[in-house]
């Protein structure tokens, strides 16, 4: 194929690892790594003891509990609704299906502050249907469900599309009902994709800010989630308190990312085996 001796100086950029990698690393450092390092330094300065003192006061503890609790609820709900939506889009046909499919991506494109405002318009104090969930946990939950809507749908959809109907048809012909077919044949195939979507939704729900800021009212111990707490601490001039919790959130995000990566590798291994 190629000549064995290739003049390195004449290699295209794609083959000059040093230049491309150097520039890429420099760019990533300035934009991402150095700011995060500054955050880590501020959050961790004073040592472990100081970090816990600052990050573990009653209000921040409540914020974290609320955040994780809501994220868990979001994940549970999205598992069901996301799969149902993906199923509807793949297996069903009805007028306007293309439009519905396109709409799923709307939360990806819509600014978060607008998302929160739309929910407030419909379900808030001057809402059109008389329901007022502003300043309640339900309101925060609704906002989180809005922004995480596409995740599970979009990870499950391709798997459903590729799914071979043969096994389902075989099971049906043997007398299995639809629920059993779903539970024992379809669902195991969906599991890695579902978990991927769930992990993405979880990460997003933990960090969401713009969608919840208007509808939550930022009531400590009631509707103050972690991102709002960090913002409020910064506003009060308590940068070290803000940084400590932000550092915690950074670590959680990183762990979730590693989890998603692991899930992807598991999924590819399963695909290769089957």
């Amino acid at each position: 194929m190629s000549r064995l001796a290739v003049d390195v100086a004449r290699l295209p950029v794609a083959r000059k690892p040093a230049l491309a990698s150097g520039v890429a690393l420099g760019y990533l450092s300035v934009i991402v790594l150095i700011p995060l390092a500054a955050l880590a330094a501020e959050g961790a300065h004073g040592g472990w003891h100081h970090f816990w003192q600052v990050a573990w006061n009653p209000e921040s503890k409540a914020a974290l509990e609320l955040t994780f609790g809501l994220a868990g609820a979001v994940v549970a709900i999205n598992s069901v609704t996301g799969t149902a939506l993906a199923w509807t889009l793949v297996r069903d046909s009805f007028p306007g299906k293309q439009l519905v499919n396109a709409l799923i991506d709307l939360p990806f494109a819509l600014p978060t502050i607008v998302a929160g405002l739309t929910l407030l318009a419909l379900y808030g104090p001057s809402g059109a249907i008389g329901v007022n969930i502003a300043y309640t946990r339900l309101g925060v939950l609704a906002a989180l469900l809005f922004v995480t809507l596409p995740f599970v749908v979009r990870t499950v959809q391709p798997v459903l599309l590729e799914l071979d109907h043969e096994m389902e048809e075989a099971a049906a012909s043997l007398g299995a009902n639809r629920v059993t077919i779903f539970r024992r044949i379809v669902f195991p195939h969906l599991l890695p994709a579902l978990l991927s979507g769930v992990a993405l939704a979880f990460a997003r729900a933990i960090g969401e800010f713009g969608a919840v800021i208007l509808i939550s009212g930022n009531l400590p111990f009631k509707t103050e989630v972690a991102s709002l707490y960090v913002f409020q601490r910064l506003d009060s001039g308590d940068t070290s308190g803000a940084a400590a919790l932000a550092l915690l959130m950074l670590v959680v995000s990183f762990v979730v990312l590693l989890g998603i990566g692991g899930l992807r590798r598991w999924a590819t291994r399963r695909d290769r085996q089957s």
Partner: protein
Amino acid sequence: MRRPVLLLAVLAVLAAVPAATAARQGTNLSVVGYSIPTSVFPKLEAAYGNGVTFSNSFAASEVQSKAVAAGLPANVVNFSITTDMDRLVQSKLVDRTWASNNKYHGIVSKSVVVFVLRNGNPKHIRTWDDLVKPGVDVVFPNPFSSGGARWDVMAAYGSQLREGKTPKQARAYLTQLFRHNVSQDTSGRNALNTFLSGKGDVLLDYESDAKLAQSQGKPVVYLIPKATLQIETPVAAVNGSNKVEAQKFVNWLYTPAAQTIWAQNGFRPVDVNVLRKFKAQFPPRPQLFKIGYVGGWDSVNTQFFDPTNGIVARIEQGLGVSTGG
């Protein structure tokens, strides 16, 4: 190859538009203020004219003060309490003489602490004692970011002294008040929004904010308690570029024309002639007192609002509401 390039070209053109029109004619002054005068400054600025354009930013007083100290560009600042102005004097952003070289000691508008209530006042709240009755939820902002909250707290404290209570009893009252507090918004305006969204039975707020809510058709009424604190909000020009223009604007804010606009928008004017014309809107109160009555801001800030040892910080820690810095 063409379509992505086309997209980039469109974006580039869109960027050129603001760049081309960005050449600003005349001076642009940036006004940084506390959260309440959001709607009055555009009117003042429109009346001022003089070919000056303005950029405004309004948020909680202490937040804004710290932001300016941290580099937020500002030409004119209007805070809720003089402490937030002193912070800028310390960083040399505002002259030490900002108050002394001015007939009104740098105070451009006044107000009073009022009770904002639901239409019909279903819980019949009339006095400071009513606030701490069982079942009453009180809304006021976070004293560690909002100047308004500090006025509210000191109004509560001072009202007890006015009624003849001892400082110890007044402090006990404050503990009760915080126990009835159901929200800790960053700013006065945010607290109003919380109240308007249905939270709480009574809101402690500036009279000017209450008037604005009413003029916006919100279903609230307000009541000025017999004993209440006079709010005095300072304004100053910030050192730096455009200081001369900024000072001219600040000086103009005291003129009868400007004071009339303040008054028309719910703020008590400092010009006594203008105040006389609007006296129906701004009734005097029999037991009105000023911050000096409870010791002046310097002493009050140390005694009450020190983030670790202040009276309020200790009350909040005792109640498990952590907002001390």
